[in-house]
């Protein structure tokens, strides 16, 4: 019997070795790839090498948005026990709240452990000293060179340029693995629109570490690919004039070249300074910006949807002349008010400071120059809402211009169909009267007004506004407008400035400056008087001007919110920009202008920036990447 049982033991031995071999086969052959990856993750610690974002240049090549180098503190999390042990010391050494640190670790707990997290985005001299002196006893901290965005101070052009920030969770999800938490990306404006161009590809510095996290060797560094620089159509000189001319008032300026659609200047005030969020914005600051009643984050140039007021009369005049309803020689007598459908409507002249309460008998030319409401009430009544709506929409209102900026608003052109759809009611004929002078439900954005007025003056050619210079496939719309119509409408707008019209004071010697003012009521004047709150509901001041009178080179649309009369608040801003445009043009043709004469100031050192010498030396190979060119511009 023992012999038989010994044979059994032999089989058991063979079976046991066989089972063990199957176990090895599974690990070493079937799942080998998986474990090889894990071994590689163990072995290699990757520290990102952040690619600098591309700069933004103005049309003359001047730097408008730049980068500066800065250092972030990275926490290596491979060893949770070691992290937990050293956390209090790290918090104290870097001057961080321990709760903040644990929160950051919590947020990152779903990330792979080998991926370090940024615990302090902007290292101070003290931080660097702390990290250097504790390299051996706290082997968890690394310095990461990053490129921070630098914008021209004070919110200059900040709505157009936009700003960058840490990517949101939605962005990470939508990016298909391109973004990781803590990455920076454009959040608004051009930074967002052209993020793919501006953002480079981060590189990777790879080191071999042993099981206690000590660096034992280095692997070849994967270089960062810097983002592409983009040239804008913005003219720094004009932008500067526009910013200064609008000044502290709420409003917007859009200057276009209607021949090409190039945006020469885009201003929206109030403007936040994006340098403030270039590092990290706290939730509180962000909440404040969002809840500020002045709406500093709104790009009024493309997002403010406001009644255009009398500027709309140009669309009315075009519709009237094209449809011949009423015929072009139509005249009306303006007594300062008129009654339509049983309700009295007043002409602005009724409240004018001169005391004259009437425009007398007006024809189209005079109605444009004097902005006579009574004339256009009559035109509107005769045209009807559907014809008005047709022309307004055909000329580009009520829809986005397609400017290359995110979140543009479409404005609104009311129609019978619209009230039926939205309010489920019939259109009241009386509403047409308000629409005829750009009030009522009509809303437009400043960029739409620049495009539409410029396009009419161009003879019905509407170029898609854009900020990227040499942009491919710039859209173009053509709307058939007869030559006599264009002639009469542009003559009218020439008269507004040059022939005793509402903006006669804006006249510029030697320049065929034309345009149309608008004074848009925020609420009905009668209601306002009743409420006795004239100051709170001051009229929005519009002016859209261009030069020369036909085939203009520049069209400028300005709104000054609560600015009062169009030609008094908005008009001078338009005039300043157009004058600056011609001054520069003349200088250029005389050979006097060079872009160097007026360089953007990007030199102001952002707060708390240091360039730690030790860290620079330590990460020497990172710094060999193309350094941002601001070194040349800084005073040495």
């Amino acid at each position, binding site marked *: 019997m*023992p012999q038989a*049982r010994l044979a059994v*033991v032999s089989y058991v031995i063979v079976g046991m070795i066989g089972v063990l*071999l199957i176990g*090895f086969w599974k690990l070493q052959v079937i799942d*080998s790839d998986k*474990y090889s990856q894990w071994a590689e993750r163990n*072995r290699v610690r990757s520290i990102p090498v952040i690619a600098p974002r591309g700069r933004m240049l103005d049309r003359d090549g001047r730097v408008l948005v730049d980068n500066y180098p800065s250092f972030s503190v990275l926490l290596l999390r491979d060893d949770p026990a070691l992290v937990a042990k050293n956390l209090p010391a790290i918090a104290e050494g870097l001057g961080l709240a321990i709760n903040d640190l644990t929160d950051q670790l919590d947020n990152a707990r779903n990330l792979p452990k080998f991926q370090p997290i940024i615990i302090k985005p902007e290292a101070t001299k003290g931080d660097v000293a702390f990290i250097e002196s504790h390299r051996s006893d706290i082997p968890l901290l690394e310095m990461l060179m990053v490129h921070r965005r630098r914008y021209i101070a004070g919110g200059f052009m900040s709505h157009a340029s936009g700003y960058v920030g840490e990517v949101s969770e939605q962005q990470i999800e939508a990016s298909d693995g391109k973004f990781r938490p803590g990455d920076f990306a454009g959040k608004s404006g051009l930074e967002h629109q052209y993020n793919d161009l501006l953002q480079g590809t981060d590189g990777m510095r790879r080191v071999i570490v*042993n099981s206690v996290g000590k660096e034992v060797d280095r692997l070849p560094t994967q270089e960062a690919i810097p983002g592409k620089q983009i040239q804008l159509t913005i003219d720094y000189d004009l932008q500067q004039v526009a910013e200064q001319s609008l000044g502290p008032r709420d409003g917007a300026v859009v200057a276009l070249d209607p021949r090409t659609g190039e945006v020469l200047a885009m201003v929206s005030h109030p403007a936040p300074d994006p340098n403030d969020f270039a590092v990290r914005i706290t939730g509180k600051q962000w909440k404040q910006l969002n809840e500020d009643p002045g709406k500093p984050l709104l790009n009024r140039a493309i997002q403010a949807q406001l009644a255009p007021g009398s500027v709309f009369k140009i669309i009315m005049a075009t519709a009237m002349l094209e449809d011949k309803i009423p015929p072009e020689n139509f005249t009306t007598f303006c007594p300062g008010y008129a009654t339509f459908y049983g309700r009295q409507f007043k002409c602005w002249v009724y409240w004018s400071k001169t005391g004259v309460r009437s425009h007398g008998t007006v024809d189209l030319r005079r109605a444009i120059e004097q902005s006579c409401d009574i004339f256009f009430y009559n035109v509107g009544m005769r045209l009807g809402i559907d014809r008005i709506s047709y022309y307004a929409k055909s000329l580009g209102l009520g829809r986005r211009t397609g400017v290359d900026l995110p979140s543009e608003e479409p404005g609104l052109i009311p129609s019978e169909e619209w009230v039926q759809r939205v309010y489920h009611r019939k259109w009241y004929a009386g509403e047409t009267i308000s629409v005829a002078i750009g009030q009522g439900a009509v809303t437009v954005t400043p960029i739409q007004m620049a495009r539409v007025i410029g396009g009419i003056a161009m003879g019905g050619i509407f170029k898609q506004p854009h900020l990227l210079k040499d942009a491919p496939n710039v859209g173009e719309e053509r709307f058939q407008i007869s030559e006599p119509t264009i002639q009469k409408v542009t003559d009218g707008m020439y008269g507004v400035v040059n022939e005793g019209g509402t903006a006669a004071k804006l006249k510029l010697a030697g320049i065929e400056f034309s345009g149309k003012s608008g004074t848009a009521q925020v609420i009905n004047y009668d209601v306002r008087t009743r409420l006795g709150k004239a100051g709170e509901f001051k009229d929005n001041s519009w002016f859209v001007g261009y030069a020369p009178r036909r085939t203009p080179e520049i069209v400028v649309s300005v709104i000054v919110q609560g600015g009062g009369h169009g030609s008094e608040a908005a008009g001078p801003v338009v005039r300043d920009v157009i004058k600056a445009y011609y001054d520069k043009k003349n200088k250029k043709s005389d050979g006097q202008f060079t872009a160097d004469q007026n360089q953007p100031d990007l030199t102001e050192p952002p707060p708390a920036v240091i360039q730690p010498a030790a860290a620079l030396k330590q990460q020497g190979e990172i710094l060999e990447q193309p350094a941002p060119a601001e070194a040349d511009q800084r005073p040495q």
Partner: protein
Amino acid sequence: MKDAPGTRDYDWWLIAILMAICTLGVIEIYSATHGSALAGMHNKQIRWLAVGFVLMFVLSRLDYHLILDQAWILYLIGVVALIAVLLVGHTRFGAKRWIPFLGEFLQVSEMAKLIIIIWLARFFAEVRTDELSLQDLMKAGLLIAVPLGLILKQPDLGTALVLVPVLVVGAFLAGLQWKHAAVIALIGLLLLPVGLHFLKPYQKERITSFLHPEGDPKGAGYQLLQSKIAVGSGGFWGKGFGNGSQNQLGYIPVRYSDFIMSAWAEEQGFKGVLLALGLYMALLLRLVQNAQRAKDRAGMFLVMGVAAALGFHVLVNVAMVIGAMPVTGIPLPLMSYGGSATLFVFLAIGLVMNVRLRRFVN
């Protein structure tokens, strides 16, 4: 016993297998330690192996019947030594397992294993019936329980567990009855929760972390995971001598000792594992063959006791390396670095040799 056996009678195949395995061990100990603070460990291992070889030959000359005659005395010495180690033993790594011996520390429980093998061989040899009676089985079990309990007390769960297969294989060969086996298995299963209750916290932790490795990334679960990564990343062909990152960078825990198979598998791949496990299989089958040819029951039980102990070591250690069993601290015979464990194996093989040398003698 009358005339001394000649050198031709030694199992040279067994010795060749033994030396081959030892060579693999020394190579891997060198690879695992040469670049670290432990450099030179392979030389120490070679010294232990040399001592082991000498002891093996010495022990093989001494007739095993003489040894078996003293089984009860050896048993008592063993128990006393185990008690002594608990009282005056040297504590290392949190366990009281060592007593100083010739300038080194010896692990008493390793020697106790040997004594138990001898004692059980004598016990079962004296059972002359074809079927093992329940009474004898209980007697064997109880007498094993004493040293087993003392070893558990040190604590050294791994070594304590090795006694179990020695008993089981012995009983099986002595004619264990199926019904008894079934009843004992059932009782064992029922007592398992009670046994778990007596485990030390670190032992429980090893078992829980084996069952849920993700809950304990840095403890025993981490060790098993790192071992699996090392083995798996080795692939079929291995990363080459001295090139295993898991091994060289220290991710494999005690890579020169308990987890040496992990380091070997990483650097030599599946082909290396095939070689190593092939050698172990040859070793064990060679032992069984020696048992078959043993002159008497006592010799057969002696050899199979050794086979059971070594087989259990290989199974538990290698299964741990591939993450199929919890960490128990059982070294891989002849490959793992370690003085006491190496001496135990050589002395055990010395007993086997002893039996073989006397197979024709009467």
